[in-house]
């Protein structure tokens, strides 16, 4: 296994690892954030006529009545789309098992396959007028049989896509035999104990507070396009737009402004609007903006989670899993633009911190006439963890053993890393865990929640007529997937440090965290560092922000870029100070000789020296002009092999994912009469390797747990049998308020990743992953009723009580 390439410098004394206040916050919480809809005040507005039916053939589109609307500019249907724009949207992540991948057209062609699919685009003076025009456009539909519900869809009485037999987009089996060569099924047959059961997880969605949005400006003189998009990947949106519009890449700029949350939905691209709006802006030579509204977001972006799982498990008297066989029905909605990443992640990450005897996992990814399914924070892991952790609890119940003991019996031990799970992960690379300490994590969690003293607490509550229960859940999360990210670091002659990386930010605190890395690596004051993300004018090569990868991949790229800058600075300083670069240190932005503080030169001066000038604009640049300083006349002003400027660019391309982990526990109370469910305590032990900023990591955990509470107790997408989404608003789709989210008690464990220079692992998604499993376990413990289906409402719990 690879060693850490180089020990991280100064992490002990720098701001790396400190609870530095987020520098984004002042801007964001005083209303000075610039989100998509804050831009383009004079732009025309786009609005869409969307299908009111889940499955229908378009017979005719009559726009006549809309043509008289004052302020109407243009109306487009599929027929108007030229060239490749008229083709289906890209299938972003192909996979051999995805034999029947299908994507939508930017505007529906002949058939609509879910309520909300865009059919007509209207451009008008403002959004009000555009919607007025939309309401006058008449689309004549021939209603087709809607396919709703993954089990119904799997029976294939009706098809979502005529040419997809059985409604099966993908079918995949992965088998990991036991060390003795036995298959999972053989191991289960031979096991002393076996259990079989079914689990259900409902649909939820990212629901960022800011929906999607696109604002495009065509510059006819320059024949160039600038697009602002509320996206998680500006570089890739740029490439998609250039390809779909046939523009040279250098003529397209894409910028992600402040983005009000993404959680996965904005990594999917190009959304129809992301190419239609720029296309129309160019065609009309007018600025155009589309801001998604909440209803649009519910019915025409993406959902996730929904799975049915059939589990068979064989285990020994200690609860050690000898064989596990899981069959998953995964509802992928109407289209598969993001491939089968979600069920692959479920299948692989299901294993968690455990080494199990033999494993077989099979999934079918099934089309339904509902909104497409693409990754939502956790991206298939909450389902996998629900499966594994419910299984652990069932084993414990069956054997009458403590639930944490059963888990401990299955843990991978600290001396077994790197641990190869024998599978292929979502990045096509082997599922090899790099590091972790699961027994320690569990020990910390039990102490934090008071696991061992809980029985006394339960008795006390019972004496007061109250019902409480405790639950626990563990996860391992592959984070920081490749292929790469880059970083650019430039020191200018005023001593400021300008950092850019191509991936985007949706509120995570990248400006702060990346500045901490740079301040520490370069030895400059934190305040001097400014960070730009997601702007293709600043950095053109990037993948995007998803899969808990920004700190790992961009963070390390930026650190490596800093090391280049540092090396160059020391080289120039060594020249100027007539010292050996190895004797030089940088502190507070000043290079000095170790032990001789007076022999020093500030980075600002080095920046001047690094860039010999002909013209002077101010005091600093005057010092760099050709007559001001006299470098050796027999050397060119810029030495061979050097480039002007004190800057560096580097990339980090991980060999494979780094595996973060954690364990959560909750104590819940259920009301014996009303069946209300209240989380009394919520405890988290979190291990994301080296912490760059514990406060920001805790913020990520809190947000994740809050979304997890939503998934466990509140959120579901309710489709009726006609494929209508019954709760497409925040009135009926119950996102938890602050009042529903408990105080979250967090402890950190740090097992550094040996795979990257900073020793970090991802932290963006972790909080959400085990919550449903933990809450289900705690409710089950309080009630003594198996909980196999999440989310669970008081009404559901009441029904379970009646059925007992």
């Amino acid at each position, binding site marked *: 296994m690879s060693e850490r390439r180089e020990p991280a410098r100064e992490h002990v004394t720098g701001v790396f690892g400190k609870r530095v206040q987020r520098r984004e916050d002042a801007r964001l919480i005083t209303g000075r954030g610039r989100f998509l809809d804050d831009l383009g005040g004079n732009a025309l507005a786009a609005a869409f006529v969307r299908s009111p039916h889940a499955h229908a053939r378009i017979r005719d589109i009559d726009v006549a009545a809309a043509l008289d609307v004052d302020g109407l500019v243009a109306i487009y249907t599929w027929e108007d789309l030229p060239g490749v724009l008229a083709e289906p949207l890209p299938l972003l992540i192909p996979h051999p098992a995805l034999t029947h991948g299908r994507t939508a057209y930017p505007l529906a062609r002949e058939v609509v396959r879910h309520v909300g699919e865009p059919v007509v685009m209207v451009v008008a003076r403002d959004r009000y007028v555009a919607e*007025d025009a939309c309401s006058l456009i008449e689309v004549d539909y021939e209603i087709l049989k809607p396919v709703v519900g993954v089990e119904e869809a799997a029976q294939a009485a009706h098809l979502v896509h005529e040419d997809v037999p059985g409604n099966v987009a993908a079918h995949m089996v992965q088998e990991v035999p036991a060390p003795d060569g036995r298959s999972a099924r053989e191991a289960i047959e031979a096991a002393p104990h076996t259990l079989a059961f079914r689990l259900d997880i409902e649909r939820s969605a990212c629901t960022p507070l800011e929906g999607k949005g696109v604002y495009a400006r065509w510059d006819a003189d320059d024949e160039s396009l600038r697009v602002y998009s509320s996206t998680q990947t500006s570089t890739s949106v740029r490439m998609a737009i250039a390809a779909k519009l046939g523009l040279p890449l250098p003529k397209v700029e894409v910028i992600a402004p402040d983005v009000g949350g993404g959680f996965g939905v904005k990594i999917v691209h190009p959304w129809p609007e992301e190419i239609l709006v720029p296309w129309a802006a160019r065609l009309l030579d007018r600025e155009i903006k589309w801001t998604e509204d909440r209803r649009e977001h519910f019915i025409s972006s993406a959902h996730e989670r929904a799975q049915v799982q059939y589990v068979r498990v064989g285990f020994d008297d200690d609860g050690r899993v000898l064989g596990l066989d899981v069959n998953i029905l995964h509802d992928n909605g109407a289209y598969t633009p993001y491939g089968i990443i979600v069920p692959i992640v479920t299948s692989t990450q299901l294993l968690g911190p455990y080494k199990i005897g033999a494993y077989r996992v099979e999934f079918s990814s099934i089309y339904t006439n509902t909104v497409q399914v693409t990754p939502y924070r956790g991206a298939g892991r909450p389902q996998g963890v629900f499966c594994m952790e419910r299984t652990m609890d069932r084993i414990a119940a069956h054997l009458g053993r403590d639930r944490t003991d059963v888990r401990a019996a299955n843990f991978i031990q600290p001396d077994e890393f790197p641990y190869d799970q024998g599978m292929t992960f979502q990045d096509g690379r082997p599922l090899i865990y790099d590091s972790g300490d699961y027994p320690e994590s569990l020990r910390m969690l039990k102490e934090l929640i008071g696991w061992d003293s809980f029985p006394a607490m339960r008795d006390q509550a019972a004496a007061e007529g109250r019902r409480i229960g405790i639950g626990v859940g563990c996860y391992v999360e592959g984070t920081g997937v490749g292929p790469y990210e880059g970083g650019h670091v430039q020191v200018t002659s005023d001593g400021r440090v300008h950092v850019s990386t191509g991936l985007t930010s949706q509120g995570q605190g990248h400006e702060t965290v990346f500045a901490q890395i740079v301040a520490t690596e370069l030895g400059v004051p934190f305040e001097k560092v400014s960070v730009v993300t997601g702007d293709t004018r600043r950095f053109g090569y990037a993948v995007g922000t998803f899969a808990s990868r920004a700190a790992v991949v961009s963070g390390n790229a930026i650190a490596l870029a800093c090391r280049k800058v540092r090396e160059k600075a020391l080289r120039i300083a060594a020249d100027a100070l007539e010292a050996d670069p190895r004797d030089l240190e940088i502190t507070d932005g000043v290079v000095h000789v170790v032990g001789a503080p007076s022999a020093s030169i500030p980075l600002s001066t080095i920046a001047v020296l690094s860039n010999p000038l002909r013209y002077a604009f101010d005091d600093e640049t005057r010092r760099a002009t050709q007559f001001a300083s006299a470098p050796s006349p027999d050397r060119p002003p810029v030495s061979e092999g050097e480039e002007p400027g004190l800057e560096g660019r580097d990339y980090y391309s991980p060999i494979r994912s780094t595996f973060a982990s954690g364990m959560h526990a909750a104590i819940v109370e259920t009301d014996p009469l009303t069946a209300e469910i209240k989380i009394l305590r919520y405890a988290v032990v979190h291990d994301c390797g080296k912490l760059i900023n514990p406060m920001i990591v805790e913020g990520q955990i809190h947000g994740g747990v809050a979304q997890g509470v939503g998934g466990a107790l509140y959120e579901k997408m309710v489709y009726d049998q006609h494929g209508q989404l019954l709760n497409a608003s925040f009135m009926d789709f119950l996102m938890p308020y602050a009042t529903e989210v408990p105080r979250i008690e967090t402890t950190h464990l740090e097992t550094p990743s040996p795979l990257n220079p900073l020793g970090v692992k991802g932290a963006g998604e972790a909080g959400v992953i085990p919550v449903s499993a933990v809450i289900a376990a705690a409710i089950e413990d309080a009630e003594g009723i198996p909980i196999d289906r999440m989310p669970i409402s008081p*009404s559901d719990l009441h029904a379970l009580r009646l059925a007992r």
Partner: protein
Amino acid sequence: MKPPPFDYHGPASLGETLRVLAEVGPHGKVLAGGQSLIPLLNMRLAAPAHLVDINRVAELDTIAAEPGGVRVGALARHAAVERSAAARAVQPLLGQALRLVAHPVIRNRGTVVGSLVHADPSAELPAVLALLGGSVRLARLGGEREVAAAEFFTGPLESAVAPGELAVSAFFPALPERSGTAFCEVARRHGDYAVAGVAAAVTLDEDFRIAAARVACVSVGPVPVVADVTEVCGPRPAASVGWDVDWDAVARAVQDRIDPEEDIHATATYRRHLTGVLVTRALKSAAHEAGHGEQGEL
């Protein structure tokens, strides 16, 4: 989610408001706090040609607490009524219910009268008005009528307000001496409309026996369901061991009167069960308050 075009009217006096309303008739809608109407407009579920904004009509911004009851003007916000000590003293149920209405920011804009006119069967205030036997005063150009709660709520999201009419105030009567009230509900999230909820009023006689007991239930029928449970409850003496009431029988009596429906948040069975639980809780709490806690643990 943008409303279709409408004409906006911003009258500054009651007289002007009534004139505009008379003019626009069935094509007009009153805009009060906007907390229910604006979402309906944005979702294009309502498309009035005229919007008559009463927010400038200062004379409607009144809360008058008299011994006989509280009269709340059409511009009195939920928050103002909730905070009014005088209103609370005369009719504590107003404050008890308003605490459960939405969230503080919505209560800062939403109006009590608007909530009554909106007549959401899950809303708290219609149940309060119905329980107390209050009334709503409706004005039109050249006339006025006082409509009793029992006639005011005509169906889900339907009230007796006719085109051209403005609800100018609502009257919430006070209760006799030795009375207590309570509002108990279960909502999915803090501040949401209730899955089920029960307002209760109990009056005790001089011997602290239950002389009158009524409940009004929300979210279990097209309009608030009022049930007089005096007979099932009492008159029972206040025994030292607690109220000698067959609470199960009381709950059943109310459950027989309601007609809950299933929706995405709850089954009808759960709503019925919950209403029974809440009837008991609310009545016990109201009775407790009526006795000023003198009867000890219930």
